[in-house]
């Protein structure tokens, strides 16, 4: 664990711990829904990467924005979403964040500044940068964080928008979650040179951090978010992390692309929740029992939310062609309006 500096507020620590647990528990339930054939389609689990989303989002305020990925449940929870609307979305119900129209890969939560998951790898890099441009033009000091994977660094769009972000000094932080794989391929087979050097070449200050250490991530995020607010952005962070499950829930036999040993090492020695929990008890911030209680609470929450969602209504058939176009108030279309 990284050394803690000024920050000694145990409430913050416990909230981070709880948020990481919430992500893990959410994913366990989502996986279960898939395995029991209750969830339509597929989904991509964030388990193992919790310290990344939580470390970063805990440095943000509600009006700050994030863009998320196909592996987006973790970002969504970390930015403040509720279980009920999330499970409803995963199950295609009307009370989902997107009224069931988006599903896992498009989950969004505008009320908390989550501009949405994206099923196009790299698809939200422009959106995040545009959100930062909007903040700057508006004179607001909101910051936008763009989450994406190591695999997404192969999309040319990243370099186009980093160039503009650097030229225009936009308040955006590019957060590259390097979990070692893009689908069934190791990062070193798809990424030449150095990922952080690529951002640096555009004049963007760049960092590499242990993505399993929530305090290290949060510490760096606090600093960079603060600097971005003051107009010193953009920044780039590579977060070294690992996904515990397959690429998606259906990716069960993984031997041909990664070993059980490798998985075991990450899970047993580098788990972000276990290690942070240990640190919290070692430092006397919380007792093992208190942590246990948090987990149980979260599990109960999740269980209730799943049950609620399973019983919730599907959207009406009439909704199918609703929301293709946003309404425009006819009054605004008049001369003089």
């Amino acid at each position, binding site marked *: 664990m990284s050394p803690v500096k000024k920050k000694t507020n145990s409430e913050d620590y416990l909230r981070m711990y709880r948020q990481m647990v919430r992500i893990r528990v959410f994913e366990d339930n989502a996986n279960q829904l898939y395995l029991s054939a209750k969830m339509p389609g597929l989904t991509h689990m964030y388990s193992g990467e919790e310290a990344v989303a939580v470390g970063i989002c805990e440095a943000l305020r509600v009006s700050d924005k994030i863009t998320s990925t196909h592996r987006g449940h973790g970002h969504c929870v970390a930015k403040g979403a509720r279980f009920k609307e999330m499970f409803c979305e995963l199950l295609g119900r009307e009370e989902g964040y997107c009224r069931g129209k988006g599903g896992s890969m498009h989950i969004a939560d505008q009320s908390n500044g989550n501009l949405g998951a994206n099923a196009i790898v790299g698809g939200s890099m422009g959106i995040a940068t545009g959100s930062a441009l909007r903040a700057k033009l508006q004179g607001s000091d909101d910051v936008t964080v763009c989450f994406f994977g190591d695999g997404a660094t192969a999309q040319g769009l990243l370099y186009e928008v980093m160039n503009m972000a650097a*030229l225009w000094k936009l308040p955006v932080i590019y957060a590259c979650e390097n979990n070692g794989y893009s689908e069934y391929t190791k990062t070193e087979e798809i990424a030449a040179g150095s990922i952080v050097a690529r951002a640096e070449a555009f004049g963007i200050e760049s960092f590499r951090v242990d993505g399993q250490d929530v305090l290290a991530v949060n510490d760096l995020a606090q600093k960079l978010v603060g600097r971005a607010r003051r107009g010193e952005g953009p920044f780039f962070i590579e977060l070294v992390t690992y996904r515990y499950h397959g690429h998606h829930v259906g990716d069960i036999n993984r031997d041909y692309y990664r070993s059980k040993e490798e998985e075991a090492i990450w899970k047993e020695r580098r788990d972000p929740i276990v290690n942070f929990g240990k640190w919290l008890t070692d430092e006397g911030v919380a007792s093992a029992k208190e942590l246990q209680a948090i987990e149980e609470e979260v599990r109960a929450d999740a269980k209730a939310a799943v049950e609620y969602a399973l019983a919730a209504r599907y959207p009406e058939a009439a909704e199918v062609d609703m929301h293709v176009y946003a309404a425009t108030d006819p009054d605004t279309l008049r*001369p003089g309006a």
Partner: protein
Amino acid sequence: MRNITLSQAVNEALAEEMRRDPTVFIIGEDVAEAGTPFKVLSGLVEEFGTQRVIDTPISEPGFMGIAVGAAMTGARPVVDLMFGDFIFLIMDQLCNQAAKTHYMSGGKLSVPLVLRTNLGATRRSAAQHSQSLHALVAHIPGLKVALPSSAYEAKGLMKTAIRDNNPVVIFEDKLMYSDKAPVPDEEYLIPFGQAEIKRAGKDITLVATSSMVQVCEKAADILAAENISAEVIDPRTIVPLDEETLVNSAKKTSRVIVVDEGHQSYGITGEIASRINEKAFYHLDAPVLRMGAMDVPVPFSPVLEDLTVPTPEAVVEKARKLVSGEMIHAA
């Protein structure tokens, strides 16, 4: 009413809307000091500054994506895409992102942006600078598509596009930038989904878009001299499409040609013809015919290029055949 060029009309529309709404900004290549290669935007950066008339690097997917993000968070960007042919570069941001965000979010997010670009051949600009690609975006639900046919439409449709809460793609005819047309002094907007009957007639309907409106008006002149009365209708927006006006005209004249500058095959003429056919079939004396650009990449050589686009003479010839009943034997 003054006569102003299509360039000026677009420029006025942008200036008026930027004065009216501080969230409107322009983004694209060489839009500021240079005012675009077609000089459509001259003077805007002087009035609104480089914060609202934003020059970008040559990164079409990038600045299109940035516009989507800005639109999702409260701005109304007008994206300037220098040539319509470059739309291929931004299709993902336009069609997978901008077009779908409102729906995918269950109506919670919206993307009020305008993509300004152009169409039209016969400028000797060859295959990658001469395409009319509006059919591609018309196929994607979530996008609206406007095709102004003169300075008047260019101004009125642009103002509506900027105020619309959805992504709107406007294709200007690049050969028309210096063409003048009467444009009111007072503010006006042209509603989407309202076709305009450019000239009333009773023997045949010519449905014409963008550059082809002039072509069909000329054709109608020639036909008039032969005592064939042609009705020329400009749909103005193809999404939404004013089916009713088209169908009513077809029922009246019983003969229709749809004329458009996009490639004919799998272009917009098939859709418009089919909709008319479906709703007016029992009133038609002949099949709804179509004329689009030839199904070839646009050639550079002027002698070839001029063959690829419908001309007034070609429209007249086809109209004559339709009216004379010759098609019956062809089928």
